[in-house]
């Protein structure tokens, strides 16, 4: 058969069209503006087709009152959920088909039968939604229910019809495969196909949020204003950051806390290494085991529990106060968790308490892999304990130390927020709020979405620049890098 014949070129063109259409319908599934299931004003503008299919509570969030008052029949929503599910499943089936279409002739025919089925399934689901739309006109309170056909409905119907038509065309244009032909696909493509579902998950949860950066350029208030052209404000929030004295003040304060906490961490980043070097000097294997076992436990409990322990030890009725009061060394209890004195040092101490033993393990393991003959010959040459530590142990730990240091510098702006969140209270908030915690408070607690998105965005970009520069620097200075 002539691969370059006009018939083949047309077939291939159709095949590509089907794949593009299927991909489009899958992407649109996550965009609320393209939701074909929004047949009434009672369904929130912010929910996508996918959400309509998986979350009944989100679907009916704004209709609860209408259902209770009898304005609209509840089973309409159940039906919308089911129809959305049918459409989503049909899209997944079509996606599978698009993936399989890279196989041999027999597999390819199966693939386009799947996209055909997917297209038909979508149309059936859309019909279901249309049926609900018709039923909605019988609702008691039409002014509130406002039955409507969304623009997404038309787009989906067009795409699904085109998918059906083009799949049929491809099936008609390709020859039938012999019944004894096995299903086959190139191995390099099989691997990609099996990997794709995971890549899709990564895309949705790690790359799709980047699209959320657009909130930083809009005057967006949840539930009040939407992301529309008239609310586009460009770089207004950048300017706001520097022009609004209160915000600027907050930022300066938060950056100070962040930099101090990170600097404290970096300045003591050698502690685990020294911990390991001295621990291996202990002769008793049992003692070493004992220390290692118990100093790593704190790493495996959550910061909430660390806070629970801190309460038990340092609060007014905790261990320290009870002991001092009962011994008569003090008459009034002091709550060590209140107030902001030494708060940075305290936070550093909790971090060290939690992580020191754990961070040391990697160095301990590295030390145990050092060639023992090095130490033996050093002993013969008359080297003492500290000389051996200085000239044999330390140099062998340096590569590991530097890799971890690069990572720590790259994460200079990310202190994590769990620790600061649990220890934060009204008396220490000014000194404990680090950048991550500030973004959380601003965005999640106070709902100031554009500004908090902007700060997070700048942070991500700066961290990326930091990572590359530190990696570069390390490559130049020590010839080591993390990538």
């Amino acid at each position, binding site marked *: 058969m002539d691969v370059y014949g006009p018939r083949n070129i047309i077939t291939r063109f159709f095949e590509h069209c089907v794949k593009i259409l299927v991909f489009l319908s899958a992407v649109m599934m996550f965009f609320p503006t393209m939701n074909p299931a929004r047949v009434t004003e009672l369904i929130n503008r912010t929910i996508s087709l996918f959400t309509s299919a998986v979350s009944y509570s989100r679907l009916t969030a704004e209709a609860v009152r209408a259902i209770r008052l009898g304005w609209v029949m509840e089973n309409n929503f159940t039906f919308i959920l089911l129809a959305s599910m049918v459409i989503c499943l049909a899209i997944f089936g079509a996606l599978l088909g698009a993936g399989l279409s890279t196989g041999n002739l027999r597999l390819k025919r199966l693939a386009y039968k799947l996209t055909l089925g997917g297209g038909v399934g979508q149309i059936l689901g859309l019909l279901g939604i249309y049926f609900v739309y018709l039923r909605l006109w019988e609702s008691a309170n039409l002014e509130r229910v406002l039955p409507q056909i969304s623009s997404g409905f038309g787009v989906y119907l067009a795409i699904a019809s085109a998918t059906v038509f083009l799949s049929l065309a491809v099936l008609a244009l390709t020859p039938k495969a012999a019944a004894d032909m096995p299903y086959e696909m190139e191995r390099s493509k099989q*691997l*990609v196909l099996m990997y794709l579902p995971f890549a899709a998950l990564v895309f949705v949860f790690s790359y799709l949020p980047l699209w959320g950066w657009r909130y930083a350029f809009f005057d967006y208030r949840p539930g009040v204003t939407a992301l529309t052209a008239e609310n586009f404000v460009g770089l207004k929030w950048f300017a706001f950051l520097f022009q609004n004295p209160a915000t600027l003040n907050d930022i300066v304060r938060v950056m100070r806390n962040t930099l101090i906490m990170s600097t404290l961490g970096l300045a003591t980043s050698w502690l685990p290494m020294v911990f390991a070097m001295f621990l291996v000097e*202990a002769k008793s294997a049992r003692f070493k085991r004992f220390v290692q076992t118990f100093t790593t*436990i704190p790493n495996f409990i959550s910061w*909430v529990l660390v806070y*629970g322990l801190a309460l038990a030890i340092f609060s007014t009725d905790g*261990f320290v106060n009870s002991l001092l009061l009962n011994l008569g060394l003090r008459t009034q209890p002091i709550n060590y968790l209140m107030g902001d004195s030494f708060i940075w040092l305290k936070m550093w101490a909790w971090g060290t308490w939690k992580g020191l033993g754990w961070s040391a393990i990697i160095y301990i393991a590295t030390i145990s892999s050092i060639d023992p003959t090095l130490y033996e010959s050093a002993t013969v040459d008359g080297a003492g304990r500290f000389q051996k530590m200085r000239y044999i142990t330390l140099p062998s730990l340096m590569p590991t130390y530097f890799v971890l240091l690069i990572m720590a510098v790259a994460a200079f702006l990310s202190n994590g927020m769990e620790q600061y969140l649990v220890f934060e209270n009204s008396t220490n908030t000014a000194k404990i709020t680090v950048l991550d915690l500030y973004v959380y408070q601003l965005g999640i607690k106070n709902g100031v979405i554009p500004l908090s998105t902007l700060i997070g965005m700048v942070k991500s970009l700066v961290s990326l620049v930091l990572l590359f520069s530190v990696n570069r620097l390390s490559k130049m200075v020590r010839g080591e890098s993390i990538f």
Partner: protein
Amino acid sequence: MATTRQEKGKTGDIVFNLINYTVFTIFTIACIYPFYYLFINTISENSLVQRGLITFIPRGIHLTNYVALAEVNELGTSFLVTVARTVIGTGLMVVVSAFAGYLVTRREMQHRTFWYRFLIITMYFNAGLIPWYLTMSMLGLTNNFLGYIIPTIVAPFNVILVKTYVESIPVELEESAFIDGAGYLKVFRYIIWPLSKPILATIAVFGAVGHWNSFMDSLILMQGAPHLQTVQHRLFNYLNQNTNLEAIMGRSGIVQDMLNTKVIKYTISMVTIIPILMVYPYMQKYFERGIMLGAVKG
């Protein structure tokens, strides 16, 4: 001359060891004493605990605090939710990491480097908390149990761990299976999966601890669904609310003796620590192997 030098070395040794052992002992005690303190205060006579008299030795041992806690329904729900996410989330994560990790070891994969980097970049770069939250909300994963599971299925770091481990398995094993007509799924199921058990156990243990300790995702995603809060989230609420605690205790008809917020907080904390402390001795070797493997380059 020689003897004095040796003598000097010996005293130096003794002093060094003394200081060394003492410092490590003190730090170790600092690490475990808080757990011990918490524990003895939950099993001792509550009136003594209230007066702060239990510091080193438990007195008047009883378990009524723990028994009373079992009646707090809210806490039971949180436990169920957390156990469910730990089991389901860890199971899926292990299977997916193992399979994806195996796939990226196959050199014949089309655009392999691209697909691998596509995954690894996400470890160093992310959009930030707020866009992530907005995405979760857009997908309908807020106030939804699936919000705990789906985002945690693919963990790039674990994929790296599995990939590195699988690369150490002799490739001839796979090749001979391919010659016998096995496909990737079969090879994965019968060769890679059984041989990677050690690394899979390690990531399972880390994953389970992560799920059990999860707090931030519960705090951020489940604002409108208190029944889906994890134990850590619930504990955090209890630690910060005195009145609420007593109200809860009063509602579930707990003896007057328990109307002591301090003891209640301690007991709830202890209950959430116990599972970790119980599995820790068995899992220690997996934890340690995990950090060693984590040191390899991506």
